[in-house]
C-alpha cells in the first residue's frame, strides 16, 4: 500500500471511528462500519504488469544471486505445535550416575552398589499419575501432572513371623513365598524385603502400589495426598507386638540401605521424603494421624543412610489440623517424635499470624483437608486402596 494511501486510510479510520461511536444500536453500528470499510477487505493489489515485473525480477535474483542448492529434499513440511510430554511430566528427572544397573537378567537385576532385585513376583498395576499441592501458594493444585515417584514409605508387612534360625529355614522360605503371593495379588507394595534380606519387586516403581492410600506428607515445596501414587512402598517382612516395635535383622537393613540408595539415585528422591508409614498414615473419618502405626518407632534411619526423619514436622498436623490420641502416643513408646512438636509449633505460629484462635485455625485447616479428600474419594481414586490394604494389614 502506498504511503499516501496509508495516510489517507488512517485519517479516514479516525473519522469512521468517531462516527461509529455515536451509534448506539449494535446492528446499525455494524451496518455503518461495514459500509464505511467497504473495499478494505483485502489489501489493494498492484496492477498485473507490476506484479509480473516484480515476479520476474525476484526469479532472476534467485537465479543469479543465490548459490545452487546442495541438498534437494521432497519432504513435505507440516505445521507442528508443541504438545504435552507423553507422561504428563513438566520436567524429566536428571539422569543418575551414582548407582547404576549392572546386569538386567530375566529374573534378577544387579546394581553397582550390590543391590540385587528379584522380579519373579512382579505384577502389573496402574501407572502413576498424580497432582501435587503447592505449599508456597496456599496449597494450589499443580497444573502439571506427575508420573514418577518422589519419595519412599517404609512399611512392615505385619505378617506372622516365626523364629529366625537355621532349623526353620524351609519354614521361613515357605512363609515368605506365601506372603509374596498374597502381596502380589493385592499389589500391596512396590518392594518387599524378606527375612533373608532378599529384595522382591512386586509392583514396578513407575506404577502404583496400594500401600498408603489415606496419607499425607510434604517437603518444603509440595504436599502429597494419597501416597500410593507419589511414593514407593517398601515393606520389611516383619511384625510388631503389643508395646514392642518392629524389629528387623541386619540382612534386611543392608538390603533396605542399598535399595534406598538405588531408588534415591534413580528418581532423585530427597532424603526428607523417605519416611515411615506411621508418619504419613491418617484417618480421614476422625482426622487423627497414625491410622496405621507400622514403624511408629525404631525405624533404623541412620543404618539405612538417612537422617532421623522422625524429626521432620508432620504435615498432617501442621497443614491440615489433624490430631493424635493416646493410643498413637503409646505406639511411639511414649516418646513423641520431635517432628510432632515442630508441627504443633508451626500450627500455633500460623494461627497467631492469621489472628485466629487455635480452634478456629484447626477447623479451617481440617475443612481444607476434607475438601481435598472428598475430591479424591468422590472420584473413586481411593477405592482400590481400601480393598487392598484391608486385606493385607
Amino acid at each position, binding site marked *: 500500500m502506498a504511503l499516501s494511501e496509508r495516510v489517507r486510510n488512517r485519517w479516514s479510520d479516525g473519522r469512521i471511528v468517531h462516527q461509529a*461511536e455515536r451509534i448506539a444500536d449494535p446492528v446499525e453500528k455494524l451496518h455503518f462500519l461495514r459500509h464505511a470499510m467497504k473495499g478494505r477487505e483485502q489489501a489493494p493489489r498492484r496492477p498485473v504488469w507490476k506484479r509480473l515485473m516484480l515476479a520476474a525480477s525476484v526469479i532472476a535474483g534467485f537465479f543469479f544471486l543465490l548459490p545452487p542448492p546442495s541438498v534437494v529434499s521432497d519432504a513435505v513440511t507440516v505445521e507442528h505445535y508443541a504438545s504435552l510430554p507423553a507422561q504428563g511430566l513438566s520436567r524429566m528427572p536428571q539422569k543418575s550416575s551414582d548407582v547404576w544397573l549392572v546386569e538386567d537378567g530375566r529374573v534378577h537385576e544387579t546394581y553397582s552398589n550390590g543391590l540385587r532385585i528379584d522380579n519373579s513376583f512382579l505384577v502389573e498395576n496402574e501407572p502413576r499419575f498424580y497432582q501435587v499441592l503447592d505449599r508456597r501458594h496456599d496449597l494450589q*493444585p499443580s497444573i502439571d501432572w506427575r508420573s514418577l515417584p518422589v519419595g519412599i514409605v517404609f512399611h512392615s508387612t505385619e505378617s506372622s513371623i516365626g523364629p529366625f534360625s537355621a532349623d526353620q529355614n524351609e519354614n521361613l522360605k515357605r512363609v515368605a513365598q506365601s506372603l509374596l503371593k498374597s502381596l502380589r495379588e493385592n499389589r500391596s507394595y512396590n518392594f518387599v524385603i524378606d527375612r533373608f534380606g532378599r529384595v522382591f519387586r512386586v509392583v514396578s516403581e513407575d506404577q502404583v502400589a496400594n500401600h498408603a492410600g489415606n496419607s499425607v506428607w510434604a517437603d518444603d515445596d509440595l504436599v502429597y495426598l494419597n501416597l500410593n501414587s507419589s511414593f514407593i512402598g517398601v515393606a520389611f517382612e516383619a511384625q510388631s507386638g503389643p508395646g514392642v516395635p518392629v524389629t528387623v535383622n541386619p540382612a534386611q537393613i543392608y538390603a533396605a540401605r542399598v535399595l534406598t540408595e538405588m531408588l534415591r539415585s534413580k528418581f532423585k528422591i530427597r532424603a526428607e521424603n523417605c519416611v515411615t508409614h506411621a508418619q504419613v498414615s491418617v484417618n480421614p473419618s476422625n482426622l487423627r494421624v497414625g491410622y496405621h502405626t507400622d514403624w511408629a518407632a525404631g525405624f533404623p534411619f541412620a543404618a539405612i543412610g538417612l537422617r532421623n526423619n522422625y524429626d521432620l514436622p508432620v504435615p498432617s498436623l501442621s497443614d491440615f489440623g489433624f490430631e493424635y490420641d493416646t493410643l498413637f502416643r503409646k505406639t511411639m513408646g511414649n516418646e513423641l517424635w520431635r517432628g510432632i512438636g515442630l508441627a504443633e509449633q508451626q500450627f500455633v505460629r500460623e494461627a497467631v499470624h492469621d489472628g485466629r484462635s487455635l480452634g478456629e485455625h484447626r477447623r479451617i485447616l481440617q475443612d481444607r483437608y476434607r475438601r*481435598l479428600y472428598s475430591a479424591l474419594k468422590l472420584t473413586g481414586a481411593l477405592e482400590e486402596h481400601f480393598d487392598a490394604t484391608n486385606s493385607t494389614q
Partner: protein
Amino acid sequence: MLQTQPNNGYPVGLDVGTSRIVTAHRVDDDFQYKTQLNAFVNLPFSKMTEKTLAKEGVPHSIHDSEIVVHGSESERFADLLGVETRRPMSRGVLNPDEPLSLLQIQKIIESLAGPARAKGQKLCFTVPAAPVGEEGGVTYHEASLKQILSGFGYDVRSINEGLAVVYAELESSNYTGIGVSCGGGLCNVCLAYLSVPVLSFSVHKAGDFIDSSAASATGDLVNRIRITKEDAFYFNGYFGDKRMQALSIYYEDVIQTLVAAMKEQFTGSKSLPKLNRPVPLVLSGGSAMPKGFRERFEQVLGACEFPIAVSEVRLASNPLEATAKGALIAALTDQ
C-alpha cells in the same frame, strides 16, 4: 417427526458447529436461541418405540427400517444404550466418513429453524476458517450447507466463525479485536479491524480432540467423557479420577496449541493493520466454558510474547450462543 420452532420471518443466525447447532432470532430487542446437539443415534425399529418417541416429542425419523434419533436427545439414548452417537460433522466440516451426514444435518436444522417464512428471508450461517496449512478445505462443506439452506427457501450467506464472535461481542470496541471460538471440531480465530476480517484461521485441536484423546487414555466411551467434561470438569481442580486427569492434560494441550498457532499466524502475517491501541480478545464456544479456562488461556498467552497488544481476555457473555448471535447480527445488517 420434526419439531419446527416458530420462525417469525425475520433474519436468522445459524451456528453450524461440530458439536451443536444453534439458531438465533431477534424478538423485539431480545435475542432468542434454540440449540440441538449435532449428533444422532440409530435405534432398532419397533412400532412401540416409534410411538413412545412421538408421544415424548423426541426428534426422530425413520431411515432404512431403523429409527434415527437426532439432536440433543441422541446423547441420552446413546448413553443408555452404551453406544457412541454418530456425528454429521467432524473437525469443523461435514464428516466424510458418515454417509448420513447431509441428511441428518438437514433434519436437525429443520427442527431448529424450519423453512423460510417469507420470501427472501435472510439466514446467515457460520463456516470455519481453513485450518492452518489446509487452505480451501471448507469449500465443499460451505457449498453443501448453502444448498440445504437455500432448499428451505432462505436467502443465504455465510460468515466466518471467529468474525461472528467479534460481531456478537465487540461492539464496544467498534468491532475491532480478536474473536476466538473454541468449539468441538476446531478452534476458530479471527482478528477484525473496524468490522473487517483481517486474518482468520482455525486449529484442529478442540473439544472433540480432548474427548477422543481422553477416551482412548481411559478406555471410556467418547460420549461418556463428553458428558463428564461438560458436567464436572474445571481447571486447577484436585482430581483423583482418571477421566478428569486425562481431560486436564488434553485441555492444556489444546490451549498450548491454540496459543502457539495464534502467535505463529499473527507473527507471520503481512496484512496486519497498525493498531494504535491494545485490542480485546473474546473467547467463546462450549470448550471455553470450564471454570478456569479463561485464566489459563490468558496465562499461556501472556507467557508467549504475543505480537499484538491485548487489552483484555474475556469470556463471551453467552459462550454457547455467541457465534449464532454474531451470525444473526450479520444477517440483520444485510437487510
